[in-house]
């Protein structure tokens, strides 16, 4: 009996979806707008995160060691630092490496090459390049180093760069918060628009719902087809939204890549196609069915 009812509910849902042609189409179009906003927010976050990560990647501090510092000593400090939670990555640059890098950089400058040759020994010391997980953590890392008062350390360039690092970390934080806030507000608006559209669509069935109750239909049996319709609106809308994204990203992807230097959104769309599609279908179906449930509730009180 339950199975028969479920089959009937689904069948009626499909029939109503088809017979309410224009109303279904209008609802789907509004839903497309909602899902388009959702999709854009997802893509926007991808872009924002990539850009911010890139920016953050540019921030680091370097610890310079004195020329007479022993390699083992430097490695020991490196290992110690690597154990810190805040540290993401440490690159050890030996004195020889520093010299060859320096030479490479000034290949065309004969004067520098010549004066380097005149020096018997390497004037550059080894160094450690430290990247923190979060720019705000450079302060504590450099404090840790200063506190351990290692005699072989020549200098830490954190203090010089402090202003820039702090400002950048502030910008990163603000950008993330703003991105999150925008996502929240826009999704809320999109949800309300979709919800109200479905509510209006169901309002036209208000009297019919009363009649159904009076001829002895249970609330669940009446609601079922509306929920099925809502899910269908969501699925169709997700489908259309994905189709719209294709040409749009094909055009916009390379442009955004040039401007932000971030990932190509079109490539992201292609490689995450099913994931993105899945999210949109889920959001659409959930919104559609939930709106139907809420909208029918008040008419079922008879």
């Amino acid at each position, binding site marked *: *009996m339950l199975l*028969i*009812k479920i089959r*009937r509910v689904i069948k009626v849902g499909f029939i*109503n979806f088809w*017979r*309410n042609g224009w109303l279904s189409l209008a609802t789907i179009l509004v839903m497309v707008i909602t899902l388009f906003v959702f999709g854009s927010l997802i893509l926007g976050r991808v872009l924002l995160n990539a850009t911010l990560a890139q920016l953050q990647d540019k921030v680091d501090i370097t610890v310079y060691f004195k020329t007479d510092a022993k390699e083992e000593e430097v490695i020991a400090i490196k290992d110690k630092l690597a154990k810190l939670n805040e540290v993401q990555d440490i690159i050890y640059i030996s004195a020889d490496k520093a010299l060859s890098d320096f030479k490479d950089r000034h290949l065309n400058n004969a004067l520098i090459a010549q004066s380097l040759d005149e020096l018997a020994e390497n004037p550059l010391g080894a160094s450690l390049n430290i990247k923190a997980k979060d720019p705000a953590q450079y302060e504590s890392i450099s404090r840790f180093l200063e506190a351990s008062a290692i005699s072989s350390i020549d200098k830490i360039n954190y203090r010089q760069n402090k202003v820039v690092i702090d400002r950048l970390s502030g910008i990163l934080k603000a950008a993330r918060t703003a991105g999150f806030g925008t996502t929240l507000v826009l999704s809320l608006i999109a949800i309300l628009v979709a919800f109200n559209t479905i509510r209006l669509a169901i309002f036209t069935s208000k*009297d*019919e719902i*009363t*009649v*159904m*109750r*009076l*001829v*002895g*239909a*249970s*609330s669940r*049996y009446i609601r079922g087809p509306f929920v099925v319709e809502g899910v269908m609106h969501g699925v169709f809308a997700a489908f259309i939204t994905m189709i719209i994204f294709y040409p749009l990203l094909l055009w916009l992807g390379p442009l955004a890549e040039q401007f932000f230097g971030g990932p190509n959104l079109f490539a992201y769309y292609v490689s995450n196609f099913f994931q993105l599609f899945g999210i949109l279908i889920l959001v659409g179906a959930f919104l559609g069915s939930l709106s139907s449930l809420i909208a029918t509730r008040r008419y*079922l*009180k*008879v």
Partner: protein
Amino acid sequence: MVYFDKVSKIYSPTSTALDDVSFSIEPQEFLSLVGQSGAGKTTLLKLLLAEEKPTSGKIFFESQDVHALSRGELPFLRRRIGCVFQDFRLLSSKTAYENIAFAMEAAGRTDEDINSSVSQVLEVVGLVDKSWHFPHELSGGEKQRVAIARAIVNQPDLIVADEPTGNLDPLNTREIIEVLKKINEIGTTVLLATHNKDVVNALGKRVITIEKGKIIRDDKGGRYVI
């Protein structure tokens, strides 16, 4: 079968729809409820169907207090009462056939059961050739016959008809009343609310007259007198 026990319905202090109404309906009875517009006929039927709650008093269907039922239990009561309205109240997005079948589907009947029963009642009301028409493609009389078919298809114990002929011409009126009489003859109780004098006089059955929310007359084999 149905028992109204001191029922009052007060919408607002200045508008009392029913005032201390008590009466009972016996099984297989054909009872006409007459009175002018605004006398309280429709309110009385709405209370019986639990579409609205009484301000005071109780309404029993058999031994069940109608208003003690929860929203989940109400459908089971309503499946035993078929209702017909002045404005037909068909489901506009469903065909005549589907409108009739809906009452049975909602009750969880099997497909074979539905097919045979719906075809049968379509024959009874004479609409076999219009079964796939939508309500807006039917005339008033045809719509009302679909509504009656929907009301009787679940073989209810009671048919409640609220001014079923109010929007119909004399010919259709006679046909609808004939159908109701036939239903009554095969053992279904009928409660007919109407203000059509000719209909009531032609029936010659029990008549309850209400005026300003009170029962002022209750005659067996009565006539329409106001």
